[in-house]
């Protein structure tokens, strides 16, 4: 077993270990979870820094026979698009399990589910087999229901149900699309492993996808994954879900799970069905543009801190969709980098909101005032997340948005203008939020609140450092992403 399989296995083994631990040993459960996710983080760092972007392609490849009858192999590997995603997941789960220390009700189940979910997420990013990608994708979605419904807040049951059913409904489309690919390749030509992503992009196999086929099945795959990427108008699970979820789950969900959707869009929809992508991209680009503006405006109207962030995620994922649909190298690279950047920043957001909510038991923006006085660390971290969100240079979000916008201007200048305007709107609501809740006269009602706890501090610090590091020195990310986006764009025939 190589790095990649250990990355998937470590959380899973930890989940099993936790299941075996006695219920009363809450702290050992927490530590096991933290240790396992720490190991994954280290491993994912290895993978990230070990990826040789000059060589490109899939690396760290492992392959195991699984169902030969269907040509399904457990193939793992990362390329320049998935390596940052693996790193992102490693970071978010580590910080997430630190943040979750304060979960006390059924700690055991909580951590087990969380870790299983993470295994699924890693599985999606590392899988080179369509079947396993989908397999892991569903694993990543499923524990969400309980995590939200049991440990969540605000309308958690409705939100959990809506989220799960919508996401699974999205995966219906994916499933159909995958089967169509399977039939199309396997039925017409023997000897092709029709679940192998690499093989599917092979020119010889690509011939098997006639234009009509691509036109029919591209939207299926794209929308199917797009639901998880909170693509407008299939996004409504996301604000509700984010609001309802417990802190670490919000972090994972907004930070990582939504990226699974976008990743699927890139890897399968655009990657395998280029002609379909060319034909459909403008429509989905329009969806993305609507999402970015509309999400930003919706966020502005929200009163609940988490709702603001939830809609802001919709808006930011709108950029990702835009970036993908520009079908330009710059845009696509920007989209992938935005996935990373948004993952980190939104994880930071949710970690902090959770920190405050656990004490105050409310998230009404209007109720808070002047928190900066008593909670300097909290406000500082939150401000950095907010600034990253509004695209402040020096933080990761800026580079990502820059590239997305450049890609958009190359292809659809008017949409680019809209997207840039959306950034200004984002600045408005983020700053409004901060000015309202953190500045202003101190409300003595909140004198009992304490600043971030050690575990939260460490988690937030990791995220902040990542945001700054990726913002100041994005070159390693971008050369990596670039090396793997280029072949996709080449197939699509997009702007290089």
């Amino acid at each position: 077993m190589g790095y990649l399989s250990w990355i998937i296995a470590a959380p899973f083994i930890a989940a099993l270990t936790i299941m075996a631990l006695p219920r009363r040993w809450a702290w050992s459960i927490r530590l096991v979870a933290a240790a396992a996710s720490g190991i994954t983080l280290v491993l994912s760092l290895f993978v990230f820094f070990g990826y040789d972007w000059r060589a490109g392609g899939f690396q760290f490849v492992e392959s195991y026979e699984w169902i030969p009858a269907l040509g399904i192999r457990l193939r793992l590997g990362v390329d320049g698009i998935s390596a940052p995603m693996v790193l992102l997941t490693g970071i978010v789960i580590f910080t997430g399990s630190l943040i979750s220390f304060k979960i006390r009700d059924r700690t055991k189940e909580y951590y087990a589910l969380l870790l299983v979910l993470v295994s699924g997420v890693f599985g999606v990013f590392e899988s080179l087999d369509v079947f396993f990608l989908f397999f892991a994708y569903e694993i990543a979605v499923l524990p969400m229901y309980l995590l939200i419904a049991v440990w969540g807040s605000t309308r958690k049951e409705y939100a959990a149900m809506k989220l799960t059913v919508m996401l699974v409904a999205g995966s219906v489309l994916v499933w159909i699309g995958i089967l169509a690919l399977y039939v199309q390749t396997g039925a017409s030509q023997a000897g092709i492993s029709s679940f192998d992503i690499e093989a599917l992009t092979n020119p010889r196999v690509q011939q098997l996808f006639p234009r009509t086929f691509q036109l029919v099945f591209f939207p299926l795959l794209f929308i199917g994954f797009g639901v998880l990427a909170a693509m407008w108008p299939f996004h409504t699970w996301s604000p509700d879900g984010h609001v309802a979820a417990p802190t670490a789950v919000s972090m994972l969900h907004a930070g990582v799970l939504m990226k699974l959707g976008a990743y699927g869009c890139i890897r399968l929809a655009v990657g395998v069905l280029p002609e379909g992508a060319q034909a459909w991209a403008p429509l989905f680009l329009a969806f993305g543009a609507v999402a970015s503006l509309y999400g930003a405006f919706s966020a502005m109207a929200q009163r609940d801190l988490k709702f603001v962030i939830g809609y802001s995620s919709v808006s930011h994922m709108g950029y990702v969709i835009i970036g993908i649909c520009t079908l330009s190298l710059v845009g696509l690279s920007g989209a992938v980098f935005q996935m990373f950047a948004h993952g980190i920043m939104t994880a930071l957001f949710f970690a902090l909101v959770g920190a405050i909510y656990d004490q105050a038991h409310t998230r009404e923006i209007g109720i808070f005032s002047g928190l900066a006085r008593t909670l300097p660390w909290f406000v500082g971290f939150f401000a950095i997340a907010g600034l990253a969100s509004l695209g402040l240079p020096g933080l990761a979000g800026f580079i990502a948005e820059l590239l997305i916008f450049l890609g958009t201007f190359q292809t659809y200048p008017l949409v680019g203008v809209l997207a840039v305007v959306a950034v200004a709107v984002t600045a408005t609501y983020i700053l409004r939020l901060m000015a309202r809740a953190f500045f202003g006269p101190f409300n003595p009602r909140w004198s009992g609140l304490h600043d971030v706890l050690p575990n939260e501090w460490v988690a937030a610090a990791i995220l902040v450092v990542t945001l700054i590091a990726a913002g100041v020195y994005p070159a390693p990310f971008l050369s990596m992403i670039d090396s793997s986006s280029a072949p996709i764009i080449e197939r699509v025939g997009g702007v290089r």
Partner: protein
Amino acid sequence: MTFDVNQLDYALLAPEFIILGLIFVVWTLDLILGRAHQKLVGWTAVVGLVVGIAVAALQWGTRASFAGALRIDEFSVFFKIVFMLMAIGITLISLEYAGRFLPQPGEYYGLVLTGTLGMILMAESNELLTAYISLELLSFSSYVLVSYAKTNPKSNEAGMKYIILGAFSSALLLYGISLLYGALGTSYLPDIARAVSRLGEVTPALGVALMLILAGLGFKIAAVPFHMWTPDIYEGAPTPITAYLSVGSKAAGFALVLRLLVGGLLPIHGLYQTVFAVLAVLTMTLGNLVAIRQRNVKRLLAYSSIGQAGYVLVGVAALSTLADVAEQATQGMVLHLTGYVFTNLAAFGVIVAFQNVSGGRELISDMAGFARRAPFAGLVMMAALFSLAGMPLFAGFVTKFYLFAAAARADLLWLVAIAIINSTVSLYYYLLVIHQMYVRTPPGFEVAVNGHPAHGAHEAPHAPVPAMATAVAVEPIGAAAPVGNAELIAAGGRASRGAAGAHPGTAAAGIRVVPSADGHAPGHGAHAVQGAHDAHGAGGNGAGTPWWRRDITADMPPEDAFPPHRISWVTNLSLALFLVGIFVIGLWPQPVIDLLVEASNALFAG
């Protein structure tokens, strides 16, 4: 094909004879030992079945025919093992249940065995009369088993409905068989296949025969619209028997369908492909839609099993003249059925366990908080339900994927799409059950839950005891004053309102009752409580404290504690076995698939 007494190789039927012997042993033991030792009887059956499985396993690889009427090949051996495993499972989960709820448990185990024998013969039968008789063997056992809980009116009513409809359907089936026999002049499936392909066209007699036979088999597999009995009988039958019907009866029905269609009627598959496609659509859609609004968990699983039958019917529709597609479809169907056996056994096993501890309750809402009090059973139930919904890690995903892949290859992508959409719908109602088990509070403990006192109160209106709850809620607040009295009182009032549904016995049961406002409730009362707590007690996290010196546990909400359910080790063991089955098929299905490849080869070769 002719019946030749000299061809009778009785050794081929060793497992069947073992079961037969076992039946007599079980009944004799029951006579000797009596009700007090019914568990011993059950264990005897289990041991015997294990031996049967071992013997059956030795048969793997033989392809022989017993008088042309029974085929012993990989296909039937596979089903044989599955059915015996299922019988073991049913027996295990019955051990406690039978003692609690059923009269004469010893006979009960014997009847389970006779039914199992019927199933095994169904899977083996290569001739219509044999098939019919084995089907009746299964049915008769089931009739008795369904109405076994003599004192339970529901059980009786179910038994009566079952026998009326069962006899009715067997009459239809028989009429169809007779027409088929008349049309083709033979009742041996290989001969039928030959005759049908020689016929070249579909005669009206053949068509009518097919209609009736499909209706008769449709009854067994509970295909819409022949499903009407299912919910009622599943609801009324003793729960292990519900499991038995939903798993064994259905699987056996499909085994027979496969035998009949593949062995005899594959040449005219074009005739019935559309029929099965339509039946599949109806079956899964209706099953899943109606399941949404069920309140009784057994009834819910009844509809769910109708839905599952619909998925398998997709595979039937995918049987085609293309050999590899048809074989893949067969493998898919059997794989799905196998996974479904373990999965549904697990689900019903949990329900049995639940009924054991709850005195036979069966509403979904009765299961509220079950996973809190019986975590392992809850876990198994969740796994089972997710498996039924076709979620990965669990058997259902792989099996469905395999099945649907085959159907997709048979140009039935539209049907697959409907099936997949249906499994999303099914996820919804499975989640409702999971939701009750995991999210809701156990009845009687509503007060203790983080901020959600209202749920229990809605469903089980008990005498309100606000005074007690208020006292409990206000107590921790009294110590800390800085927040202001108005808010404190508001908090207390809120807590008391939340506690309105509290069970009178809550306090007496020794449960730590926590103020309802002290959780994630978005009410203002919570601030008062928490704020007071912070200001008073957790001075260590004040503004002056550096971040690394702060107390992580400061905001931890109080833990909810509930007394665990006592679930017997046998039940837990059987649940664990089912769980292993679910996971094995879900994570490493290749061994099973290897077996199935051979099984389908054998089926198609016959």
